[in-house]
């Protein structure tokens, strides 16, 4: 059976789908038993759902593993480790008053998380650390009184660059002078850029337009994440995003990625064809929200994410509240194997009826930790 190390040592996005499923299946069966043993809440849930009070029997297909809705982590602190092994607790982003998810990591899982992100990013970017433009305010990481998902996203990425330049001020205004100084030194060279999708477009791209700047970022590579909801309102989709940035900066290597704080290891990276691909240690299933059956190819449904990295909490199989499609499977020869996912957006919330005026809180899109 494949162990987790092998999934790390092979190039990311290289496993043929069948091999991957076989490798993940064994690890997931073990993980399910391990969480069943160590997390009382998870044990209770399995007992009730299966009607049996015995150890998890091997499942044959990835779709046969019980999934937890991600919101469950807002409702309950689910962990599979004793308190003295808690290394850090991560929280999801959320608007004021809205409940946030709490995810408990031990040292092992935190290490796996760091290695996973590194394996994924260096696979796409190359091993070399480049001068980096962070499309955010420097205070996002300085102001540490709240470990927000945005800060976590920035902190996770800055390790892959050097000579960091934060392109925005606290009012989300583009630092034109600072950018010019940075570019005087590095324009035309390989540059790493990172930001949240909406901020990249709204403050960086529009800021450049406003200032009339056309910096040469043709050797640059941009990673961005955070969802398209706000940009969809402005009729900006992925194609328009790439076109606009390419026109103004010459940037061609632009990679959107999808992930969530609730599942360590699930960072789905955009390949050259515009689809999102799971790394070696993760996979994705689309479910029909009426029957919960696996959706047909190209059929819109709820995204279920799978990762073999969550060891400290039972988050290895999660049902998200995002809608998506799987278009097919990538060709391993292209360097992008695995399922081709596109994320359409959040499941729309209907107006709820009833006597109590509890307003459905507007949901802030989540970044990646």
């Amino acid at each position: 059976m494949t162990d987790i190390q092998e999934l790390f040592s092979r190039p990311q996005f290289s496993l043929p789908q069948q091999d991957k499923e076989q490798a993940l299946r064994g690890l997931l069966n073990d993980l399910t038993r391990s969480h069943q043993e160590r997390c009382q809440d998870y044990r209770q849930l399995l007992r009730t759902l299966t009607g049996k009070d015995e150890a998890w029997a091997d499942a044959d297909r990835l779709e046969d593993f019980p999934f937890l809705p991600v919101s469950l982590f807002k409702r309950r602190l689910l962990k599979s480790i004793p308190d003295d092994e808690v290394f850090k607790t991560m929280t999801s982003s959320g608007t004021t008053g809205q409940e946030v998810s709490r995810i408990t990591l031990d040292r092992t899982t935190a290490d796996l998380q760091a290695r996973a992100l590194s394996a994924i990013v260096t696979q796409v970017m190359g091993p070399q650390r480049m001068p980096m433009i962070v499309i955010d305010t420097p205070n996002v990481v300085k102001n540490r009184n709240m470990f927000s998902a945005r800060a976590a996203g920035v902190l996770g990425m800055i390790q892959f660059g050097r000579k960091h330049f934060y392109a925005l001020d606290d009012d989300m205004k583009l630092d034109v002078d600072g950018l010019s100084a940075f570019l005087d030194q590095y324009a035309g060279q390989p540059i790493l850029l990172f930001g949240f999708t909406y901020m990249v477009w709204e403050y960086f791209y529009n800021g450049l337009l406003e200032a009339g700047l056309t910096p040469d970022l043709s050797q640059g590579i941009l990673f961005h994440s955070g969802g398209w909801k706000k940009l969809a309102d402005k009729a900006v989709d992925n194609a328009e995003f790439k076109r606009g940035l390419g026109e103004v900066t010459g940037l061609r290597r632009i990679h959107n990625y999808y992930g969530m704080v609730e599942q360590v290891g699930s960072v789905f990276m955009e390949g050259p064809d515009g689809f999102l691909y799971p790394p070696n240690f993760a996979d994705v299933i689309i479910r029909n929200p009426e029957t919960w059956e696996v959706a047909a190819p190209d059929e819109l449904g709820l995204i279920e994410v799978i990762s073999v990295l969550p060891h400290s909490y039972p988050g290895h199989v999660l049902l998200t509240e995002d809608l998506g499609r799987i278009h097919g499977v990538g060709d391993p020869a292209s360097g992008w194997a695995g399922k081709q996912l596109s994320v359409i957006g959040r499941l729309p919330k209907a107006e709820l009826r009833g006597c109590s005026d509890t307003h459905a809180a507007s949901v802030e899109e989540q970044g990646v930790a």
Partner: protein
Amino acid sequence: MTVRQLVPVVGDCEPADLAEQLLGIESLPPFSDEAIAFAADLSRALARAGRGRPEIEAAAFWMRRAKLNRLAASFAELGTESSLLVPRGIVFHVPPANVDTLFVYSWLLAMLTGNRSIVRLSERSTDQAAIIFDAMRETMAHHPAIAARSAMVTYGHDRDVTQVFSDVCDVRVIWGGDRTVNEIRRISLPTHATELTFPDRFSLAAVRVDAYLALPAPDRDRVAEQFFNDAYWFDQRGCSSPRIVLWVGDRASAATAESEFFDRLRTVVDTKNYQVDGALAVAKLTQAYGEIMDHSIGSYRALGNEITVLGAVELPDVRGEFCGGGLFTSVSVPSLDELPSFVRRADQTLSQLGFTREELRDLAVRLNGKGIDRIVPMGSALDFNRFWDGYDLVQEFTRRVTVDAGRR
């Protein structure tokens, strides 16, 4: 500071002007001919405009002429030789945003008892609410005395406006749950004013197993339909919608009854074409899994996305935040004796099937005010009544004046 008036006419106005206008006119006597005639006309207008919309039809039916006469008669019985009930004055209603018809009942009872009313409506407006406003405007055009005493307005969560209306009212009525009650309670009232609050509530159903199993199949189908109405009309999020179903009797029969009851309910859900959308389905899953963990719930059964049944051995405290949409906790108990130790102040309605009046009265006596304001037959959980949450609204909207001629 302006608010949007919706009834009796549409237009922007100053809250202070509105308040002034209501202060400048006198209350009508309780159950005046004018008020009854207006309500009967409104009933007809609503019945016409709301055809096919059960909530509006129910409101129209509730204020039909015969019912109004009965209400007037029972009101008359509240008076005595030495005392009479008079309107309190101005009633300020803050109904919930998500039940379109509730404000109609609150306002109507205040109106019938002679009061002038200000109703604060949500800015979120539905087609259904629009139909009601149209019917009200149309009817009030022929009833100037009622129109002059009713103002329905909409504005955002603006404390200053709420303060203006609170300053002139004699009764403030807050529907809409704990948060709304707490927010509005912070806004002061005149010293003489009273306040009625309708916070978050919790409701349950109890089925006497032997009585249910003795019913012929068509009657069991009818029970399923009645339960459907209680539970699903407001997406199971009404304060009276049952969330726990108690099966009272021996355990083996309870299991049989429960299983076939929910199968019949599934048929009703299909017939009524009630559907749970994706977001609600996920919310239900989250709540169900959470409750399984919170209360060590032993069984989970989903009959499609519309019916989820959690089977518990003991009564679990599942009160609080709730997704709705057909998530039931089903518990088998030997007798109603299990209830008194479980019931809390927040518990409102017990809808029941198969118990005798004596058994139910005995339960109410034993509860002795701990909770449960109404025990109703299955199918009547949502029927609005002047007695609500333990208040008699007709008496709350009036004051009792005593008249003692002394010894002569």
